[in-house]
Structure formats: structure tokens, C-alpha cells
């Protein structure tokens, strides 16, 4: 059995998406099978072209947002979207959209960024994550 890392991405803020994307990249680089389950705001962030205008950061560090964005631009830190694409390029990474959120927000798979692999329910995700070595909720 291949080692697996499962990420539940609930947050849609740039700071947390960046953390999730770096973890996915690390998992992919180290040869783990990486499964990302997008739900709620995490899924909203993957709506087509949303990432281009998303400047939100976590509420508790909201005051840092302008400085963080400025530093990321100045230091040319790759965006979370670039990281996810890079992770898929070097390793085995699958990104799933939560079917319940899709329903709630009235989304279809074609409304999402093309890197989203498929739509799945929570039971399928849990069934696969239970075999994993690392599971993180972000």
C-alpha cells in the first residue's frame, strides 16, 4: 500500500491555502499519495478564476493582510494555486470537491478550477483517509 496524506481544506483564506498547498507539495515530493478534500470556503476558493482576486487572510490576523500580500509579491512567493499545480506535476495528487458544498453553493464541476479531479462525498473521503498516514484539517 502506498503511503497517503489526506488534507481537508475547509478554509478559503490565502494564508491557510498557502499552508495547505505547501504541505501537498511536500507530500507529493516525498512520494506520498496526496488527497485533498475541498469543502465550504476551501471549495469556494477553487471556483474558476477566484484565486486571481482572493486576498482574504484569517480574521485573527487580518491586520497583517496588506503586509503579507506585499511581502509575497515582493519576494515572489509562488501562489497557493501554483503550488497545487506544481504538486500535481511532480507527484500523485488528487483534489476532490465536497458534494454537499457543491449542492449548497449551486456549483458544477465545470465551475471549478480544472485541477479539481472529481466530486466526492464525505464517506468516500473518510474511507480512503482512514488508510492514510497523515490527515490534516486546514
Amino acid at each position, binding site marked *: 500500500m502506498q503511503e497517503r496524506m489526506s488534507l481537508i481544506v475547509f478554509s478559503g483564506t490565502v494564508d491557510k491555502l498557502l499552508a495547505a498547498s*505547501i504541505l501537498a507539495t511536500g507530500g507529493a*515530493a516525498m512520494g506520498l499519495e496526496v488527497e485533498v478534500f475541498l469543502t465550504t470556503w476551501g471549495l469556494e476558493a477553487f471556483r474558476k478564476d477566484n484565486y486571481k482576486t482572493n486576498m482574504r487572510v484569517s480574521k485573527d490576523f487580518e491586520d497583517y493582510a496588506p503586509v503579507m500580500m506585499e511581502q509575497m509579491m515582493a519576494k515572489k*512567493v*509562488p501562489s497557493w494555486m501554483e503550488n497545487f499545480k506544481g504538486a500535481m506535476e511532480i507527484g500523485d495528487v488528487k483534489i476532490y470537491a465536497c458534494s454537499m458544498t457543491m449542492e449548497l453553493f449551486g456549483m458544477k464541476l465545470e465551475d471549478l478550477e480544472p485541477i479539481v479531479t472529481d466530486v466526492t462525498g464525505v464517506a468516500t473521503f473518510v474511507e480512503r483517509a482512514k488508510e492514510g498516514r497523515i490527515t490534516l484539517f486546514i
Partner: protein
Amino acid sequence: MPELTNVSIDKEIDARGSFCPGPLMELIRGIKALPVGSVLAVLSSDPGSARDIPAWIQKARHDYLGAFPEQGYTRFVARKAH
């Protein structure tokens, strides 16, 4: 300070100023693109590379030829083994 002897570098990638996981990504892409037996160097100023790059090379079963510190950055050298 260790020195590279009898090894000629086939390709060098400058990943200075790039952040974790940037230099590692450059190394992975670089190794993929080269023929087996090639020697690749990656220049990194990211302090995470000191552990990340050797860890990946070992995991991916390539030959780690060492880390060579320069002023403000390190040159990591690997040979593509397969």
C-alpha cells in the same frame, strides 16, 4: 569545507531567492529533465533546503554528492541514479 573533486556539473539551476518548497521543486523538475548519470546542482538560499533536499534525494534514490556553502547560499549537488 568539502570540495567537489572529479565531478563535473552538467546543469546548474539558480533557485536563490526562491522559498520552500521552490528550490526542491526546481531540483525535482531538473532531475526529471536530465538523462541518467547527469550531475545537477541547485543553488538555494532557503534554510529549509539543508534538510529537505538531502531527504528528497535519499527518498527518490538518487546519489547525493553534497552541500557546498557559498556566501549567502548553498550549492546542492546530486547525480541522477535511475
